[in-house]
């Protein structure tokens, strides 16, 4: 008889809890892998059968993690419908078991999973809408990240108007909060996302390259569509502490006139600051 030490018992029970299939199949696999029988492992004193006892852990596992997926991707669930969402979420959980101590990481790879498992487009038919669930989930995940990452709530915020002289002479220091999430998307998502969220009527968005910034200000999430140049500038600002340096770098990398960029950035700054995308350092 195999020695049932703690290592073996934990691996056996882990298999019963996490393996694919129905309870009998899971128990069968665990028994086969560890050369034991459930009746030799689990005490059968009391009213409940060994299978009923194992079922509490086995069924609880998937139900518990599905609840987590429902909370993390509530808007995707509304869009996909309960049945379809459950199918994808269950498959995701089976192929991406949690390896983290926090449930916050559980759904991290779900947008990529939806992308990888979407139906293959048929030739000659426009099936772009198959890309919408993954895009929607990407926006949802970015919102979660923005919700938790360090923001500017505890900073002393400079609210003075930006002086053009400071921009021109390179003395305007800036910082981009960690909670800012920048997304390059294949659909315009803002109106669509908000309509699904509020359970309003909506039309499926048509395929179009768009950019989105999501941030948090005063513990409120801000979600805005931005232009490609705004997207590039905000990305560049992450690498610099001075706005002029960010503009110069962007100008050099993308062959855009720095004078034009300076003029645009001057106009964009109030919007960026209002949304919590950027802050000016005194």
């Amino acid at each position, binding site marked *: 008889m195999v020695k049932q030490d703690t290592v073996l018992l934990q691996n056996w029970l882990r298999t019963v809890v*996490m393996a694919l299939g129905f309870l009998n199949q899971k128990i069968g696999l665990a028994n086969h892998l560890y050369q034991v029988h459930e009746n030799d492992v689990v005490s059968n*004193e009391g009213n409940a059968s060994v299978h009923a006892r194992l079922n509490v852990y086995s069924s609880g596992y998937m139900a*518990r993690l599905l609840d*987590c997926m429902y909370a993390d991707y509530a808007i995707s669930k509304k869009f996909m419908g309960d049945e379809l969402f459950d199918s994808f979420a269950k498959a995701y959980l089976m192929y991406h078991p949690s390896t983290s101590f*926090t449930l916050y990481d559980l759904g991290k790879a779900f947008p990529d999973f939806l992308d990888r498992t979407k139906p293959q487009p048929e030739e000659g038919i426009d099936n772009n809408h198959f890309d919408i669930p993954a895009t929607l989930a990407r926006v949802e995940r970015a*919102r979660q990240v923005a919700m938790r990452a360090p923001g500017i709530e505890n900073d002393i915020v400079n609210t003075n108007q930006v002086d053009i002289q400071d921009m021109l002479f390179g003395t305007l220091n800036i910082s981009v909060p960690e909670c800012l999430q920048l997304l390059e998307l294949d659909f315009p998502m803002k109106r669509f996302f908000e309509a699904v969220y509020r359970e309003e009527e909506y039309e499926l968005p048509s395929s179009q390259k768009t950019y989105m910034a999501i941030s948090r200000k005063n513990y*409120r999430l801000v979600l805005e569509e931005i232009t490609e140049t705004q997207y590039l500038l905000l990305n560049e600002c992450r690498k610099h502490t001075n706005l002029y340096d960010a503009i110069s770098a962007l100008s050099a990398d993308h062959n855009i006139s720095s004078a034009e960029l300076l003029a645009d950035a001057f106009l964009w700054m109030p919007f960026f600051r209002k949304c919590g995308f950027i802050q000016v350092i005194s």
Partner: protein
Amino acid sequence: MSINTKLRLGLPNLGLGVGLRNKHFNYLLNNPAGVDWFEIISENFMDDFGFASHVLMHVRKQVPVVMHGVSLSVGSTDPLNYTYLQKLKELAERVEPEWISDHLCWTGVAYTNTHDLLPMPMNEESLNHVAERVLKIQDFLKRPLILENPSTYLQFKVSTMPEWEFLSALAKETGCGLLLDVNNVFVSAHNHGFDAVKYIDSLPYEHIVQMHIAGPTDCGALLVDTHDQPVPSEVWKLYRQAQQLTGGVSTLLEWDAKIPEYPELLEELFKAREVLKGNIPDTGIYRSPNMPVSNPVDFQLQASNG
């Protein structure tokens, strides 16, 4: 670390508390805490710098806070997760909790996490294993670890001692504290046919730092620890017994699914005062024909503030 033999390991009796849950965040920003202390789920606040963290620091200014974890996995045969422990330590530096607790269980092995509180075999081998890890954790955290008895639905045939004997030996060997969940004693006693009164009487009371009370669900052959119901009479009776044994320790009402509004939650908590006077509420155990989820995670999930 030397073994502390003081009552409650010298830790304070904080009085009556509840878990800090997303559902009550807005209420708590606009109203006084109304309780003596809060318990937080440690993992919910690790790397969280948003609204949840703001609410935590808001209540922290009013009353003490205790950190209660669900992913320490002290019984796992995987190596200790020092990344996790470092995060726990950093959170403790920020929150300054009265103590840090988790469960006598394992949550995963082979580097996976089931996010459940899985049962330990109870024998010399597993006791040595857990004791060694508790000592390492306490050295790392520079404070005693407080361990809770979980609800269990199975026992391993290789077990050679009852859970109370395992916990007693662990507490004496490592100097760790005990978080006595009287509801979990009630649930496990029902599920395995042991005597709950004897269980509580057999624990080294000087190590008991805190108690949990909660309401389970009766699913026929098994009771399941659902934390979604009022505390039944049987659990209140065990609570009274345990409070008499210990001379009084911090009490926390756990309510983690179908969470009531805050004032209703406090009404349930304050029944504890009447219980100590001998007035046991007449509350039955909720019965369900369906198998509910043990250790629900609703309370661990992010509340959207968007």
